[in-house]
């Protein structure tokens, strides 16, 4: 009989308790809390125990005092706080940010793929470099030539001499250009 959770209070106080619990229940359902009936039941018991500590026949004012000292219903919606509390008690192996172990075959596939891509990129780079070098080098090392004659070679008209750019004067001691033998016409 002395246990306050096993007795009822006045209708007004019971109504006030029910209203407070309904608010908490609504918040818990809105935020998807686990086992809301446990939380509501515990709050119910806490309110009754504190009311009984104030008076044998608590009135609505006593209920106001008790509820003012307790957490408001909105406090049960503080999910970030609850998450912090939960993460605080979790060792790293089961914390929320647990890193999942990657299967071996996925690691091998990724590794082979990266290697193939790397080889392809190296090959492409090498090809581009070789192409660029050969292109610019051929333009620099092959100076423009000047053809002295466009007539077909004859006995009196020797084949054209190709004179590289910058070599306008042929030295006198240079041997004459070799002419291809011309077959006499029969």
């Amino acid at each position: 009989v002395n246990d306050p959770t096993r007795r009822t209070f006045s209708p007004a106080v019971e109504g006030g308790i029910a209203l407070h619990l309904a608010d908490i229940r609504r918040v818990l359902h809105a935020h998807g809390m686990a086992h809301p009936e446990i939380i509501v039941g515990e709050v119910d018991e806490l309110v009754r125990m504190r009311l009984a500590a104030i008076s044998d026949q608590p009135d609505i004012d006593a209920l106001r005092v008790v509820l003012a000292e307790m957490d408001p219903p909105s406090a049960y919606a503080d999910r970030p706080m609850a998450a912090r509390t939960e993460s605080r008690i979790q060792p790293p192996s089961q914390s929320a940010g647990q890193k999942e172990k990657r299967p071996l075959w996925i690691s091998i596939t990724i590794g082979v793929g990266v290697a193939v891509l790397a080889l392809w990129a190296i090959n492409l780079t090498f090809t581009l470099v070789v192409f660029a070098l050969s292109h610019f080098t051929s333009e620099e090392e092959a100076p423009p030539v000047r053809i002295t004659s466009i007539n077909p070679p004859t006995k009196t008209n020797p084949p054209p001499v190709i004179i590289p750019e910058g070599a306008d004067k042929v030295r006198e001691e240079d041997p004459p250009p070799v002419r291809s033998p011309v077959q006499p016409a029969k």
Partner: protein
Amino acid sequence: MVLLHALRHGETYGYELLQRLSKLECLSLRESTIYPLFGRLVESEHISVRSAPSNSGPPRRYYRLTKLGELRLRAMDEYWREVIKSIDQLKENIL
């Protein structure tokens, strides 16, 4: 971890547990923190709950640590010791 330790020595009910925990000033645990944890620990089967029926008034819930909860508490204790050890090493190196 605090709740599991509080339940380590046997079955107890919510109000009694809250009274004990509210005396730990450094933790400053209030009902809106502790009661949702009851729900989560029951959900994860680390603690079990049973209700004692009554002729009038709401039933009282009694909580007990499960085997899974004991294992979890042991893992938490080991981790806690490692954390303390690491902090001590850090303090020694700095000081």
